[in-house]
Every structure is written in structure tokens, then in C-alpha cells.
């Protein structure tokens, strides 16, 4: 039907389908001045979309980009973007699925730690935009009698993000973030990462043995002693003293109470 064909020309569907297909010609129905090319004009829109999405991913995953090089990263990010375009206009949340894509990306299989570094960078982005809360310091915990610490129910700071890895992801992240010339890193060393942003600056650190299990248990709302038992059961090397230092000093706690009484 000519009328419906006319209505279809210039429609979003044809335009949108071709934006994510690098090999496709322009949709029909574009009007360009004499001497101009509809394909060339459409390629500006397609290029703007691709460049914008790759730039967003490059900004969120700078350490991954440094690890593989700009050209490799941009090609990988471009494939991810075509396959998984954003589902929301809030671009700070874009790229949550990138680590899983990296883990299954055959050309990156020689870097088994790359996907976990990407997970750490996802965690940093989440922490950066997480809700604000005043963190509890040692003095706040000091107000509870030490004999009652086992009963403490701790609410973690909204910015807390944990990433467990069999690779040295924190060491890799640190040297690729801070050093002009990267230090050698023993990548086979397992490191569980803690990301927390108590105030404006996010901090990344390696958790002590059992720390991931301990904080994960606390996050479910069980009292401190029970969280320690669970961590010790899962990780025989669980270090209670080192984990209490993290809990009291790093800003990971936002609330603490015993029974029904809040701090």
C-alpha cells in the first residue's frame, strides 16, 4: 500500500535497525542536497552512536583499556555495544554486562584476569554513584561494650561492593591506575577486592582472608559472631582480627545496632 509505505519511510524502525549494523546502507527516504550521499549522511549518525558508546565504556573501564591497548579495547567495546546497546538513558549504569562479554570474548582468552578486572571497574562505578551515608568509625563501635560485639548487626555502607577473584585484580588495578610504568604483578595471586566510597573518594583494597565471606554474611543482616562463624566455615584461614580492623576503620559500616536498638 503506497500510503503505508510512505508512512514507513523515515520511520524509526528502519533507522534504528541500521544504526547497529556497520555494513548496512542508509534507510530509504533520506533527502540530501545535490552531490551528497545518503549513505554518507547516515554513517554520521551510525558513527556518533558507536563512538559515543565506546567512549562511555572506555571511561568506565580505563584499566581494562590499558591492559589490552586502545585499539583492542575499542574493537571489543564496539562489538559489545552493537550486541548489548544501553537499555536506559542513564549512561553511568551502562556496561554492567561488559565483564561477562569479556569473559566469553575469544580474542581475550589469553588474559584470564581481564574479566575480573572489568568486574572491579564495574564495582567502582557502582560505588561512585551509590547513595551517600555517613560511615561509622572506630569511636562509634567503641561505644558498644567489647563483650557484646558478637551481637552487633552491622548495616554496610551503600557504596560497598565486593569482587572475589583467583587473580591479583587489585594489584593489577593499582599499578595500571597509578603508575606511569606498570609494575610486574604476580597475576596468579588470588585477591578479593573491597570497594567503598565513605565520602567523595572511592577506595580499593585487598580483603584479608575470609573478608569476602564475612562482609557478605554481614550484608544479609546476621550478627557479627554468626558472620564470623560462617566466614570461618567457608575459609579456614579466616582472620577475625584483620577483618574487624576493616569493619571498624575502612568506612564499610553505615549502621550498627544490638538487638532492636540502633546506634
Amino acid at each position, binding site marked *: 500500500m503506497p500510503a503505508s509505505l510512505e508512512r514507513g519511510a*523515515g520511520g*524509526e524502525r528502519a533507522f534504528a535497525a541500521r544504526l547497529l549494523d556497520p555494513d548496512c546502507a542508509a534507510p530509504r527516504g533520506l533527502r540530501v*542536497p545535490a552531490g*551528497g550521499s545518503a549513505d554518507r549522511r547516515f554513517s554520521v549518525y551510525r558513527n556518533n552512536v558507536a563512538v559515543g558508546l565506546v567512549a562511555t565504556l572506555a571511561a568506565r573501564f580505563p584499566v581494562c583499556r590499558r591492559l589490552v591497548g586502545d585499539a583492542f579495547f575499542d574493537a571489543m567495546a564496539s562489538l559489545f555495544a552493537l550486541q548489548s546497546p544501553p537499555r536506559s538513558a542513564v549512561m553511568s549504569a551502562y556496561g554492567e554486562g561488559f565483564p561477562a562479554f569479556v569473559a566469553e570474548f575469544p580474542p581475550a582468552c589469553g588474559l584470564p584476569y581481564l574479566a575480573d578486572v572489568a568486574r572491579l571497574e564495574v564495582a567502582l562505578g557502582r560505588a561512585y554513584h*551509590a547513595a*551517600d551515608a555517613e560511615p561509622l568509625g572506630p569511636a562509634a563501635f567503641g561505644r558498644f561494650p567489647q563483650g557484646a560485639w558478637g551481637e552487633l548487626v552491622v548495616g554496610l555502607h551503600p*557504596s560497598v561492593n565486593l569482587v572475589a577473584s583467583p587473580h591479583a585484580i587489585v594489584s593489577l588495578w593499582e599499578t595500571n591506575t597509578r603508575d606511569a610504568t606498570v609494575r610486574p604483578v604476580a597475576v596468579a595471586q588470588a585477591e578479593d577486592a573491597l570497594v567503598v566510597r565513605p565520602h567523595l573518594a572511592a577506595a580499593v583494597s585487598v580483603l584479608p582472608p575470609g573478608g569476602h565471606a564475612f562482609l557478605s554474611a554481614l550484608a544479609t543482616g546476621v550478627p557479627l559472631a554468626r558472620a564470623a562463624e560462617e566466614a570461618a566455615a567457608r575459609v579456614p584461614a579466616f582472620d577475625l582480627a584483620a577483618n574487624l580492623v576493616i569493619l571498624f576503620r575502612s568506612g564499610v559500616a553505615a549502621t550498627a545496632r544490638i538487638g532492636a536498638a540502633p546506634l
Partner: protein
Amino acid sequence: MQPPTMPPIPNPARPNGHGRVPARAGAGLKPEHYAEIVETRPDLGFFEIHAENYMGAGGPPLAWLTRIREAYPLSLHGVGLSIGGEGPLDAAHLDRLRELNRRFEPGLFSEHLAWSTHEGKYFNDLLPLPYNADTLARVVMHIDQVQTRLGRTMLLENPASYAEFEASTISEVDFLAEIAARSGCGLLLDVSNVYISGINNGRDPGAYLDAFPMRHVGEIHLSGYAEDEDGGIPLLIDAHVARVSDPVWPYYRRALARCGPVPTLIEWDNDVPAWAVLHADVRRADAVLREAAGLSDHARVA
């Protein structure tokens, strides 16, 4: 006791009181400049933010914006609502815009005559639509929903385009004028976009400005484009990567001659320069605004 005052007369082109964002030049707010702005308190009319960059739950962007908002008027500029889209507006996104409007009380709120979302996919770009009776009705309906949900009038920005549509039956200027007349919204006149679209589509930017419904204009945008080509003819890219392009300034003066001084934003979103470089373009626009107001620098000093 203050004597009772007359309620303000609503003016769609000057939403929520023109005094909130003055008829001076302002700058797009970039994270690279947060600290310097807070420390040095540069003299400029306002800051404008991309709404979508401040939609997290918390963190540094909202903390910095809170401090900067205490010292400057604010313009809120959405880039992701897809007002020109075929699909319904995203209610969750509209709610996020409403919350930003509530929290930061911007003097101006604007969005684009464009679409960016199709069937749930967000393209992170301002994409074009044909101008005809069908699309006109749809855009007016969407703007009505925005203004109702936000409880304020908005400004709609003319796009930069690289092609036109055979399905268009209305000129862009007439399309925007009719949207403003039907919806009660104001217009954001992006003079750089007028120039870019004019060159790219073989149309006269001056004629566009001479026909533009200036009574609806509540803000102007200026920016620097990138130059490319298509088979030997120039193709300008709306890149926001440089100082305001030289050919744009005369058209800015031509627009001001018709609409009078209005808040004017210098947009510089990519390859962001040192603050002093961006501020220099802001001051240049301020000087043009003073000319347009009939005030020379000498007259101001006197």
C-alpha cells in the same frame, strides 16, 4: 510584613521567572572543572548540566552540583527523553527528571526535538524525525506529558541534522513554531545547529533565523563543530569539541537582534579544555549580549 505582590505573569519563553537564569552567558558544567569553579567562583551567568549525568543515587556529581548550585543559577538540559520518538515516554526517566527539578530548582529545563530510544534500546545520540502532521501531534503530546509531570514549561531545542526526510511536509521552523503554539513550551535556539543543518542540507541559516518564532526563545546554545566532507561538499558535525566556530558568531548576533538578550550557553562536551579557555568563550558571548542590550562596556562602567 511584606505587601502582597502581584503574581508573575506566565511567559512560556521565560519559564519560572526570567530572573532565575539571567540573560547572560553560561557554561556547560564538566567534572574536570568542579574544583576550580568552587575555589575561584568565576563570574558567569549560569551553569547548565546534562540531566542524565546526575541521576545516580549519590556520590561526587551530586555533591559538587549541590555546592555549585548554591552559588549559580542552573539550567537543566535533558539528552535522553526521546521526545521525538514513536514509542511512549519512559515514565521512570520522567520521574528522574522530576526529582532533579525538585532538588535543584533549575531556572530552565530543556530537551531536544529528537529521538534516542527505540523499543527499549537507547542509542545515546540525538536522532532525527520527519516533520509532518503525525510527528507534530506526537511531539506535542509528549511535551504535554513532560510539562504536566514536571509541573513546569520546558524549552525544546532545534537539532543539528545531516540529512532530511522525504516524509517531511513541514519546514523545521514551522514545525517548532507549531509545537510551541500548541503545547505552550518555549524554544531553545541552538544557533550552531542552525548553521550546521543549513550547510549540511543546502539551506540558508540566515533565512532560518529570520523566520524563527523568536518570541518563544528562552535560551540560545553555541558550540564548536567539526568539519568533514561528503563527496566534495562540506559536512559539519555537531561535535562540541572546540571554541564556538567563527561562522556562528554573526548568526548569533543576527538572532539576538531579533529576540533580544537571552541566556546563552557555551557547550563544550568533548576534548574538554582548561576552564579558562571555556570561560573566554563565555565572556565573548557576554560581550555580544551586552551589545545586543544596547550597553557598551563604556556605558556599563559609566
